[in-house]
């Protein structure tokens, strides 16, 4: 109360503290209340809802962008997987083709080898036959020569005993023996 009294005094005398000049209090309080109500209405009706919506919208946009980025990342991962798979497939395909080619070549090679073997076998069989024939004819000649020689010998040594068939027989016997 003492300060109030002082204030009232100060209001009377020019300097003092204008803050304690109570005659201006109703005026200040009135205009303060008007000001506060106006600011409150402006904030509550316009400014704050607008800023809140802008902030939440931004939040939403950021969340959406992050989700989109996540999705794109997933897609990139999928693409990488697909690429890897394609690469692996291509490798497998290449290996398969190589194996096929190898098998085919092997088959051809086998066939050619077999054919060559068969030809060689045929040729060698023919040669064998020819050798056999030559040998047989040589034997025949030897026999004939032996018989002729034997007969000539018998004739020269013992003409009486000349008996061609017996000589032949003896020669045959000898040759066989």
């Amino acid at each position, binding site marked *: 109360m003492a300060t109030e009294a002082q204030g009232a005094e100060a209001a009377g005398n020019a300097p003092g503290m204008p803050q304690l000049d109570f005659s201006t209090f*109703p*005026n200040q309080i*009135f205009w303060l*209340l008007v000001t*506060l109500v106006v*600011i409150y209405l402006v904030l509550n009706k316009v400014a*704050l809802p*607008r800023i809140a919506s*802008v902030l939440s919208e931004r939040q939403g946009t950021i969340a959406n962008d992050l989700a989109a980025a996540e999705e794109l990342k997933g897609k990139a991962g999928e693409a990488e997987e697909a690429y890897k798979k394609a690469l692996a497939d291509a490798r497998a395909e290449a290996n398969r083709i190589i194996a096929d080619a190898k098998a085919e070549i092997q088959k051809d090679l086998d066939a050619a080898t077999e054919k060559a073997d068969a030809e060689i076998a045929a040729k060698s069989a023919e040669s064998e036959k020819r050798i056999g024939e030559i040998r047989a004819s040589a034997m025949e000649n030897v026999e004939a020569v032996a018989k002729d020689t034997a007969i000539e010998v018998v004739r020269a040594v013992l003409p009486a005993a000349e008996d061609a068939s017996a000589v032949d027989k003896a020669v045959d016997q000898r040759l066989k023996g």
Partner: protein
Amino acid sequence: MATEAEGGGIKIDPMGQFVVEPLFGGDHVAWYTPTNVTLWMAITVLAVIVLLVLGTRGRAIVPSRSQSVAELTYGFIHQMIEDVAGKDGLKYFPYIMTLFLFIVFGNTLGLLPTAFTTTSHLAVTGVLALLVFVTVTVIGFVKNGASFLSLFWVSAAPLALRPVLAVIELISYFVRPVSHSVRLMGNMMAGHAVIKVFAGFAGALGLGAVFPVVAIVAIYGLEVMVAFVQAYVFTILTCVYLKDALHPHH
């Protein structure tokens, strides 16, 4: 000022800037008279509208500068209430935002040369503090009923001490609006008065005025900081009182 100095004796009137005067002449200040208080409060309202309404009219996802400032202010107070008073304090966000914006613009606009500082008046800060005090007390009783009184009953203290503490708590509770208002008003008034005193020296010193001018620049920088800090302090104390009302149990 210079002529006064020549006239003999330095006459400095640091309090003249706080006088409430009718805008359109006359001596009598009735409750409805448009005064310099009215003018500077209107400018405060305009500043609030320019920052928060015109500044955000783009509603841009990537904000412009003014929209950024508006959003930062919004986020600053929003975060403060949530941190101090908790989620249920956010219901009172528009009221606290109103207080903060009025004080921060009142303080900073008052720093313009020849401006009238609305927040340097006890009538203004007293009403602001009383509004907070009454509102918070009403909220306390409406939300908690009689158990709001447990705010004064420090259950953590030994039983014998509690009545003593209750008296102290009660006194401190009722002193709150006084400290709340006088802190703001005192800070604003003192800073402006000091600047005015130095300005008076500058007028009186002629060429030597360079020293008071440098001092004014330094104090002005300090006052800009004080303008924001006091608005912040007033608002955060409001949040603290609100927290006491919402959660009175220690």
